[in-house]
């Protein structure tokens, strides 16, 4: 312990003096991984690292957030907008626990993240020291892997492996917990290009025989549906999917995470699947004879009651995570591996078919398409307009029109999220960044900031509710500080809208603790942060207010006062199936 104290406070006068510290090694290793941005918040246990970051500020830009949850969501926004690894740096104890929500969110939504947390010095670990928490223990269930670094000399290998793990196979967050004395200790630094544990991260190549079998099933299916998820985006399979679906004229339905993986405006797209998905998509899956699941995990918000989900269908499941296959639904054919690889294989097999064979296959599905078009005509997405109130669905339609469908949209969680999913037709991968699996309120604003940072020229819009916005609105300061001109659209109904809707529909309108109409004046709040504030209260002013906000050069907050008790339709009640869908 004496030796340790010396290392921390007064390094021995020796050759060791010339060796880099753990903090220096960490920064070097991050630069080596191509990191140019870190989202973080300093504290006692990471002081050495912050000291070093200051010196390295020409090589890595640190973005100071206002709450650690914001840092992680920003890194998620950054990662999901670009496919690069988002990097976070927070201190021990509360710094780490505040980051946990974001880490869990990234884990559920398969987001590339490396989170570096400070830890108390090794000799204090286990003593309930100031700002000590078992970060590795707390984050264990929601990371791909985590490390407690014991020796500075291990840092290069750990950083190398952490980035490798985050990127490979199914992406996800990795946590590196660094005790304060480790970031101070001096050791030899060696750049590492290999990883010591490669076996766990690699995904097996797609089995060609299975791909052939799958293709034959698809070719011969009379009522197939392609059910696509976030895996399409993560594997970069957009083009392959589009080409394959078009070649055989296959109906496509994305999950919430799959939106943008296939153009929503495309005639082959049936709209979103699941609880708030379209009638046509849900009916098509319910009546399908073959469900081709691509980069999805059969989430309960998609399947409803498992026993009656796609009851007549054979299921082909392609996913990079072998544990996803058979977890909720047992497929008839499993293809563990990269979905892009599988689609490329299918495309190759399409090319090997004769034109007559392809034509016959497409023709055999014409009655299926007739049926689908019927469902689409019977129950399109709809809502009742209003002369004196702004309808939230109108806001999204208007936003789509004003942005030419080109905006990158982030959302929080709840009704507004579903309206975005339903009424903003996303046409590109990475165009919608939303909290899918964990359902984290407060995600939208910081995610937008991270995305904006990664894509400075892109119009980035956070559509949020008045509830979620108030969970992370302090990050307005971050956006203003760094001049990141995100636009925040608050769908303000004075309620925790989705909970209120469930209380209305399933709890006899007992509105228990959902009234949040006591709220700050969001225009003044925006101005207090140095952002521009706008407000729209009447349908007549919606377009001009939105237009003014979108044209504003800096950070803009738009308080849109919408119908208080609007519901999201259609809805498949939890634990039910497509036939129980309530359409209005």
């Amino acid at each position, binding site marked *: 312990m004496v030796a340790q104290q010396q290392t921390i406070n007064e390094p021995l006068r020796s050759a060791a003096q010339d060796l880099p510290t753990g903090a220096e090694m960490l920064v070097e290793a991050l630069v080596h991984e191509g990191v140019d941005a870190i989202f973080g918040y300093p504290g006692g246990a990471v002081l050495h690292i912050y000291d070093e970051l200051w010196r390295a500020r020409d090589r890595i830009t640190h973005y100071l957030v206002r709450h650690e949850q914001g840092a992680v969501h920003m890194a998620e926004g950054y990662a999901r907008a670009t496919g690069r690894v988002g990097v976070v740096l927070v201190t021990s104890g509360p710094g780490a626990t505040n980051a946990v929500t974001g880490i869990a969110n990234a884990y559920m939504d398969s987001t590339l993240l490396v989170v570096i947390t400070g830890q108390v010095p090794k000799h204090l670990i286990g003593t309930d020291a100031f700002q000590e928490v078992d970060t590795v223990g707390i984050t264990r269930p929601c990371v791909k892997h985590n490390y*407690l670094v014991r020796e500075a000399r291990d840092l290069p290998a750990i950083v190398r492996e952490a980035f490798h793990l985050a990127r490979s196979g199914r992406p996800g967050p990795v946590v590196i917990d660094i005790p304060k004395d480790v970031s101070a200790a001096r050791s030899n630094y060696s750049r590492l290009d290999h990883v010591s544990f490669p076996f766990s*991260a690699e995904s097996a190549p797609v089995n060609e025989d299975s791909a052939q079998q799958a293709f034959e099933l698809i070719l011969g299916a009379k009522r197939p549906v392609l059910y696509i998820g976030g895996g399409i985006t993560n594997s970069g399979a957009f083009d392959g999917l589009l080409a394959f679906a078009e070649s055989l004229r296959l109906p496509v339905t994305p999950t919430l995470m799959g939106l943008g993986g296939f153009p929503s405006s495309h005639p082959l797209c049936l709209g979103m699947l699941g609880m708030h998905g379209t009638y046509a998509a849900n009916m098509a899956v319910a009546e399908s004879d073959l469900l081709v699941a691509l980069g999805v995990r059969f989430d309960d918000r998609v399947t409803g009651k498992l026993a009656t989900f796609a009851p007549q269908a054979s299921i082909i499941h392609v996913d990079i995570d*072998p544990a996803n296959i*058979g977890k909720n639904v047992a497929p008839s054919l499993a293809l563990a591996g990269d979905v892009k690889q599988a689609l490329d294989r299918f495309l190759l097999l399409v090319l090997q078919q004769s034109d007559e064979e392809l034509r016959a296959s497409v023709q055999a599905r014409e009655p299926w398409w007739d049926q689908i078009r019927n469902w689409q005509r019977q129950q399109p997405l709809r809502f009742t307009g209003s002369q004196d109130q702004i309808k939230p669905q109108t806001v999204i339609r208007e936003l789509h029109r004003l942005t030419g469908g080109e905006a990158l949209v982030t959302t929080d969680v709840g009704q507004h999220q579903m309206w975005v999913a339903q009424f903003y037709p996303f046409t590109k991968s990475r165009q919608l960044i939303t909290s899918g699996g964990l359902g984290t309120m407060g995600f939208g604003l910081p995610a937008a900031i991270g995305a904006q940072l990664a894509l400075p020229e892109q119009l980035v819009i956070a559509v949020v509710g008045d509830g979620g916005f108030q969970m992370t609105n302090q990050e307005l300061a971050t956006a203003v500080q760094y001049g990141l001109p995100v636009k925040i659209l608050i769908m303000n109904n004075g309620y925790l809208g989705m909970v209120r809707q469930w209380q209305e529909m399933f709890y006899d309108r007992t509105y228990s603790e959902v009234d949040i109409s006591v709220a700050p004046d969001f225009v003044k709040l925006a101005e207090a942060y140095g952002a521009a504030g706008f407000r729209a209260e009447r349908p007549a002013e919606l377009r001009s207010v939105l237009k003014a906000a979108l044209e504003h050069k800096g950070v803009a907050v738009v308080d849109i006062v919408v119908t208080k008790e609007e519901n999201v339709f259609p809805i498949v009640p939890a634990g039910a199936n497509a036939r129980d869908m309530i359409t209005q």
Partner: protein
Amino acid sequence: MRHTLSIIVADEPGELSRIVGLFSARGFNIETLSVGESLDPRWSRVTIVTRGDDRTIHQIVKQCERLARVREVQDVTTRPHIEREMALITVSASAGADRQEVLSLVSVFRAKVVDISHTQLIVEASGNKEKVDTFIELLRPIGVTDITRTGYIAINRLAAQPDIERIAS
């Protein structure tokens, strides 16, 4: 159905808790668990006895395989293998008929007396679960005061060779 899983994991701090945590987080059950060095001391072998239908077991195997430091997961139940459990049992038995009865059971079950005093014996038994269970049940009326069991360990064997102990019993 009962399955014995053999998991090879890096001998590093915290790795066991990753495996155990995964079982509890995903609602899998652990009947017995034992950990020790494997052939290569850098790797530990964790033997877990669990219950579930084929799909559950398959899911457990796949989930364990996702762990970064797990090298291999084998459901040894699906192939020829040897399973053993060891128990240490304290039996209250002074010199006389009780002690004689303990000694004769020890001999029948190929167990061992590992400690003896005026009032009690500690006996060591190993074998499959059924054998150890039966042994303990037969000792109970005499006066079992403590039991500790290791849980199963298992190892693969070649199919051609018979299980010697099973033949002997």
